[in-house]
């Protein structure tokens, strides 16, 4: 093998033959791949693309509100007094026990889901404004965006950052927003929805009820009542559920209560809770399953308001509008009892009597709200308002005392901001500390 030859010829020959293959190929063509799993924004241009973003945002909001295995209606009801845990997940146990860890993976999923709904609805609204101006779905998107903002204000501690992943361009990190700032964001969205709702009464009414709820959270009951003044008594707006579709299309409360048996209907939970079972009220129908939940030890009580996985979940209604008006009427000396009894008469319930004191009237109103608005992500916000706006102690309104699965109830009145939010570059300096500005009601 080792023989001496002309020094140039072999090298040239070897190099030439070796290079022949690659230079004969077009490497771009050789390396081209097609991934059938991927959809990119470039695939979805124009009006049709905007409609798909709209549909996606509807799905995101449904998941964040009450679809599949979770959503704000499901988890806020667990933290409040609507449901107690008949499942086993430690992370859900923390919610029911009102002692939550900011490393709680279940809550991280709920938090991310609500942010995805918030960003998705905003992005879809902006795409529709650009590509389908005048379309009523613009108002729908701003309304759902408003509710996403509102749920952050009602269910989470003060300090939730509203970061952004815009349709175009890179991500934008948000700073901690106070509860008041979150309500302002919700108000802005409902205003935008109202402006875009010309010709669509449903969206106009939804914006009005949403705005009324914002004012109610601010303690401005007069503005709240004024906002909902034009909402018809028999109007409702629901988020659709569907049986037989994918898991994420199903009514989450039915799914967790009936199908998975992990949520059980409460009664006087923690001593302070509403008598959802013993009250025998037709607005919260229920039955005893006769068995136990997923944990095989907690009696399973089935709510029947949502009787199937395709039962829709009301987001806003004329009933809520009248309840908002009643709260203002208590504060202003108006005919609050007539308003409440008018609602009750509509479903054949006997009239209520005036308990005599304003404090007792508020108790009565909030009890009525708990029953009318059961399972619609209102109760946790109401309990917080009782503490924040009506001076009750959290021990007097939230479930308290011994926890039925061992230990004692904690003192949480809202959800913490997950630890993972520390990845937010706008929050540098907070390492190792809670992102919440405060955990007060």
């Amino acid at each position, binding site marked *: 093998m080792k023989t001496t*030859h002309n020094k140039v010829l072999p090298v040239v020959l070897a190099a030439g*033959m070796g290079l022949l293959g*690659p230079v004969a190929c077009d490497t771009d063509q050789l390396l081209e*791949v097609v991934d*059938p*799993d991927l959809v990119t924004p470039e695939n979805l241009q124009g009006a049709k693309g905007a409609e798909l973003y709209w549909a996606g945002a509807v799905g995101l909001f*449904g998941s964040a509100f009450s679809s599949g295995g979770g959503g704000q209606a499901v988890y806020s009801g667990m933290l409040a007094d609507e449901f107690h845990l008949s499942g086993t997940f430690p992370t859900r146990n923390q919610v029911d026990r009102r002692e939550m860890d900011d490393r709680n993976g279940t809550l991280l999923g709920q938090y*991310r889901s609500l942010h995805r709904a918030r960003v998705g609805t905003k992005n879809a609204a902006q795409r529709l404004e650009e590509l389908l101006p005048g379309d009523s779905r613009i108002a729908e998107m701003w309304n759902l965006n408003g509710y996403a903002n509102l749920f952050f204000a009602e269910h989470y501690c003060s300090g939730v950052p509203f970061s952004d992943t815009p349709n175009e361009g890179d991500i934008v990190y948000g700073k901690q927003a106070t509860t008041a700032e979150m309500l302002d964001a919700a108000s802005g969205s409902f205003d935008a929805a109202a402006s875009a709702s010309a010709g669509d009464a449903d969206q106009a009414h939804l914006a009005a009820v949403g705005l009324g709820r914002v004012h109610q959270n601010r303690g401005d009951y007069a503005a709240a009542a004024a906002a909902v003044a034009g909402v018809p008594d028999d109007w409702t707006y629901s988020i659709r559920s*569907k049986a037989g579709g994918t898991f994420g299309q199903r009514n989450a409360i039915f799914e967790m209560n009936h199908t998975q048996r992990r949520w059980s209907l409460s009664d006087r939970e923690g001593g302070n809770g509403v008598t959802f079972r013993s009250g025998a009220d037709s607005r919260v129908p229920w039955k005893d399953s006769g068995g136990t939940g997923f944990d095989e030890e907690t009696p399973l009580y089935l709510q029947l308001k949502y009787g199937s996985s395709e039962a829709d979940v009301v987001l806003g209604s004329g009933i809520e509008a009248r309840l908002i008006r009643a709260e203002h009427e208590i504060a202003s000396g108006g005919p609050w009892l007539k308003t409440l009894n008018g609602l009750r008469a509509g479903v054949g319930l006997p009239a209520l009597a005036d308990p005599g004191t304003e404090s007792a009237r508020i108790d009565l109103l909030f009890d009525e709200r708990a029953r009318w608005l059961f399972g619609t992500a209102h109760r946790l916000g109401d309990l917080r308002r009782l503490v924040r706006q009506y001076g009750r102690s959290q021990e007097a309104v939230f479930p308290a005392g011994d926890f039925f699965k061992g230990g004692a109830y904690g003192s949480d009145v809202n959800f913490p901001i997950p630890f993972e939010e520390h990845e937010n570059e706008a929050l540098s300096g907070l*390492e190792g500390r809670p992102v919440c500005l405060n955990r007060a009601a």
Partner: protein
Amino acid sequence: MGNDNNSFGMLPSAFFGTSARPWSFQKPAQLFGRTFYQDTQRFTGSGTVTWDPMDWLSFRATGGLDYYNRQDVSFFARDIGVPGTSNLGRKDTDFRNSWQYTLDGSTTASFDLTDGITSRSTVGVQYFENQFAGTNAWGIDIVNGASSIGVAAETFSGEVHIFEKTAGLFVDQQFGINDRLFLTGAIRADDNSAFGQDFDLIYYPKAGLSWIASEESFFPQISFLDQLRIRAAWGRSGLQPGSDDAIRTLSANAITTPDDQTGSGVSIGNIGNSLLEPEKSSEIEAGLDAEFFSGRAALELTYYDKRTDGALITVPLAPSLGASATRWVNIGEVQNAGWEAAITGTFVETNTVSWEIGLSGSINNNELLSLGEGTEPIGTQTRFVPGFPLGGQWDRPIVGHNDADGNGIITPDELTIGDTIEYIGPGMPENQLSISSSLRLPGGIRVTGLLDYRGDYIAYNNTERFRCRFRVCQALIDPETPLAEQARAVASLLHPSQTVWGYMEPGDFWKLREVSARLDLPERFANSFRASRASVTITGRNLATWTDYSGMDPEINSNGSGDNFGISEFLTQPPVRFYTVRFNFSF
């Protein structure tokens, strides 16, 4: 699907048990009522064609295929008593196929430039293609007697694909001088498939030197030294991002339309990173190989220093972005430097008895040198901070505890927690050592053993932290529990910091990984099976672990082997001790 750290795992059911409910999730009978199996098939094959048209010129082409098929199936028969909808009968399937093709072609010209100088020139191409396809499905509500998703009342199906292609071209030139000094220079260019964003061709040069110094006339004669080779090399390498890592993608989701039909929508899937670039590394290494005592002892020693610019890592994203949970980024500059050494020695060598010992170990220092202009430290508990190892572990420290009221129970106000997070330690072992030994005895007996050491890293005992979170750990129940143990539980559960500092423990361990004994069986026994030789080998794996770590095993990583930053156990089964008996027959 077969994950063991959920409510269908044996360990979680045991770990969360209480006196009132010893098995928290499911009882063993329920767990064993599940049918779970995994089938794998694998074929690896390659073929090589060589052609030597002249005595100094050769061509070589190699093609290879690595095929892998895996089928995971889980089945709950109806009414076996498991909780939830699985009791209606549930079947899950996950089928995956992977085809990996490799093609190599090269041309080599070898000749002598002079009587003392040889030359070897190689030009070649390489091609790699990975095709992965998987389908998964589940069905719930399966009638008694059936076990097919096809008869389930409720079903789901999914599909996933991965396609990757890489092509490279290289030129390699080596000179040999007097068969003692070898100089190598090479350059290669790589390109790969990129979906949506095209990355530039990358060039990787390298150079090397290998010198058998002991053969030089001036080298001193040392009686016990057989050979000493000194080597040094420098090279650049790189890593392209995955084909769709840089681009924003959309996920499809099903919705219920106003007329109660199912429709499709899209939302942000992978957030992408338009600034993503290939990772580029430069490495120098130097070392020596020596043989002693007529081949009965050998030493390999290497020092390396690798610098990586724009290292590719996935980092979590703030959930408030409303996007994907993670994305790929390039981080500034990373250094990996350290020593690797291997020593082997034959201490006894006779016709019937021999005893060999081998030691191999490494010391690696990993440091993030910089994050790049204007980039803040990344991560929360597993962090990327300049001046510290990649993915080091951080949290607020438990500075102290003091049972002020003397009641033997630590409460949050009796803890002192640091105000800011501090570095705890590296997430992966920095020091490794393996000691192997082989003893051959008369009568055809051979005994081997392997002892492993891993040191200087932090293991996260997340199992115990989570049990305390659920209030079923000893620290929160038994007042006799040592105060330090109580302190870490109270800090993580009841103190506002919720620091997990106390559960970040040194993971250093020694492990008797394997002991094996082989006995050659009598020829007559082998012949009775028409074999010429036969032996039996008894092997024990994971026989003993010595460690101060308080969890189940400091080697467990519930994040899976793909996680390069942090070892954390979470209700996960440790490496099991097992024994095998194997018979070998030679025909």
